[in-house]
């Protein structure tokens, strides 16, 4: 294995160097070309309040991943694997950030077909105008822009954290080299296209009249066209990662001793810190997805807050009633479940709808990680499926329900007419199910193939001996604690 990994690393490093050299050329070259082509205003008057908020939002999502998720997951495994899990999060996030700059952003967020974008922004090229000013990216308001670099940075953090979420499913037994290779493949063939399908569109300025709107609509991603509402990434992030996790833990197999040995979390306070930082950071995720600091951001914000609080209550009290005692791990898990479920909904519902979504998410995800999991018998180490996939599906569907203005929801904005409407609960839920179904299928199948490839090339699973000793010393030559 040692040799394998080393060769892999060398290859990756060499490749990276090569690509970068090409990139720097092409970036410089393309800029001149692109500058002319861009349809958006040459030097828009950005609002500094928007920029301030989006800078903050971006760093908040970074904070969700590291240290947030790294701790949340790190605390949940046994002490002998704490570094292994944190390391997988830390390095996956870094590698994908680099790849995002090289080709990820371009494939996800430039025009192409309904499933994949193009290559015009590879190496982040073409984001400066001829005068060296930062070109704009669209928001959800006509005539309001943020610098495209900022949009690319914000979305970069989404790509990174989504992949990191998967780590929890096969924690404590997968080889580090296998994790990294899988992540690169999955990012390229699952994350990028699904982000494109759900989020890519021409921007509000294109919706000038009915004809233009139709044309614009057709240039958008596949699920965007289906009318699936996903404000901040319920499908792209949570369902996508959750199903990839389930497939992973099924393929890699159960941990040695699962079901017979105690596998208690080794550091519950770390879990608490992690969950709390996820809560805090998630405002960047959700209210940041509003892309501007207008008044509506406040609604997204309070929705996110209340859903989380309600989910903590939901999980904790349900646990108290049905499982004897309320636990810290439960409260922390409840917070995450609520955050997951409100993610697609946060910009489409009202505060009372958010309370209901949160409370339900707390109870449903508790059910998922207890009854459902033990019924199906898979070993999803840190419940990526039970919390992110189940919570994501619940949130996606309830978005369709509570979007209803009669339930305090916002309805949907018609950029041409300038009015708010509502598609009807049934129609909207159908749209939502399109989003859920396509994501489950696409990510499920792509994940399966990626795992199989990795298994063939370098093998997925650490040896039994290594698993017993713990991945920290074996794979990373370190111990978490010397107290």
């Amino acid at each position, binding site marked *: 294995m040692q040799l394998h990994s080393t060769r892999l690393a060398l290859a990756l490093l060499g490749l990276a160097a090569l690509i970068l050299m090409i990139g720097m050329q092409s970036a410089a070259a393309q800029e001149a070309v692109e500058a002319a082509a861009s349809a958006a205003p040459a030097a828009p008057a950005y609002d500094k309040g928007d920029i301030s908020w989006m800078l903050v939002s971006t760093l908040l999502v970074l904070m969700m991943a590291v240290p947030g998720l790294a701790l949340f997951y790190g605390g949940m495994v046994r002490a002998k694997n704490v570094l292994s899990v944190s390391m997988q999060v830390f390095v996956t996030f870094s590698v994908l950030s680099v790849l995002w700059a090289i080709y990820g952003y371009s494939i996800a967020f430039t025009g192409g077909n309904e499933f994949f974008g193009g290559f015009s922004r590879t190496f982040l090229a073409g984001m400066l105008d001829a005068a060296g000013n930062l070109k704009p990216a669209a928001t959800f308001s006509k005539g309001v822009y943020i610098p495209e670099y900022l949009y690319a940075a914000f979305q970069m953090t989404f790509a990174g954290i989504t992949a990191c979420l998967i780590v929890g499913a096969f924690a404590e037994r997968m080889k580090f080299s296998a994790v990294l290779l899988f992540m690169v493949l999955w990012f390229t063939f699952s994350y990028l296209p699904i982000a494109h399908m759900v989020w890519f569109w021409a921007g509000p300025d294109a919706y000038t009249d009915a004809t233009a709107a139709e044309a614009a609509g057709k240039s958008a991603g596949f699920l965007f066209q289906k009318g699936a509402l996903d404000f901040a990434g319920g499908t792209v992030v949570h369902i996508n990662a959750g199903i990839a996790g389930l497939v992973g833990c099924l393929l890699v197999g159960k941990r040695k001793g699962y079901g017979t040995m*105690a596998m208690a979390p080794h550091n519950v306070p770390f879990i608490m810190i992690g969950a709390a930082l996820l809560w805090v950071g998630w405002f960047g995720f959700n209210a940041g997805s509003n892309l501007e600091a207008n008044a509506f951001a406040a609604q997204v914000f309070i929705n996110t807050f209340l859903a989380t609080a309600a989910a903590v209550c939901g999980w904790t009290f349900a*646990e108290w009633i049905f499982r004897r005692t309320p636990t810290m*791990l*439960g409260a922390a*898990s409840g917070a995450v479940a609520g955050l997951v479920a409100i993610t697609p909904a946060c910009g489409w519902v009202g505060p009372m709808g958010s309370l209901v979504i949160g409370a339900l998410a707390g109870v449903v995800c508790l059910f998922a990680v207890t009854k459902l*999991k033990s019924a199906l018998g898979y070993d999803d180490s840190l419940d990526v499926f039970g919390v992110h996939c189940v919570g994501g599906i619940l949130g996606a569907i309830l978005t369709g329900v509570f979007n209803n203005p009669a339930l305090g929801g916002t309805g949907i904005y018609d950029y041409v007419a300038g009015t708010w409407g509502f598609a009807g609960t049934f129609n909207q839920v159908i749209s939502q199910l399109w989003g859920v179904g396509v994501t489950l299928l696409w990510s499920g199948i792509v994940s399966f193939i990626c795992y199989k490839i990795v298994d063939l090339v370098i093998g997925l699973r650490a040896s039994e001996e290594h698993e017993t000793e713990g991945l920290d010393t074996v794979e990373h030559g370190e111990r978490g604690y010397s107290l």
Partner: protein
Amino acid sequence: MKLITAIIKPFKLDDVRQAVADIGVQGITVTEVQGFGRQRGHTELYRGAEYRVDFLPKTKIELAVDDSIVEQVIEALSNVARTGKVGDGKVFVIGLEQTVRIRTGEMGVEAV
């Protein structure tokens, strides 16, 4: 010389130490251990998993004492360590063939 080993409830440590000091035992060595016995443990819940934790935190103390005071020491420490509830622990006595104080090289009863 005898080596007295006692397994006691952790929160009794201070009392026990005091009690044996009163008899004149100057040094003891203490180890945190886990005990399994008649005393029942508790249940822990972590999401889907429920574990019966049978072991209980106990404190092991070791004292090397002169034969002459063995009974007295056992008596004293048992008295203060006793709560009367299951799990109070045990005392074991073992013969010591040799004792050395590293600092001085003194042996036997001089060494403790």
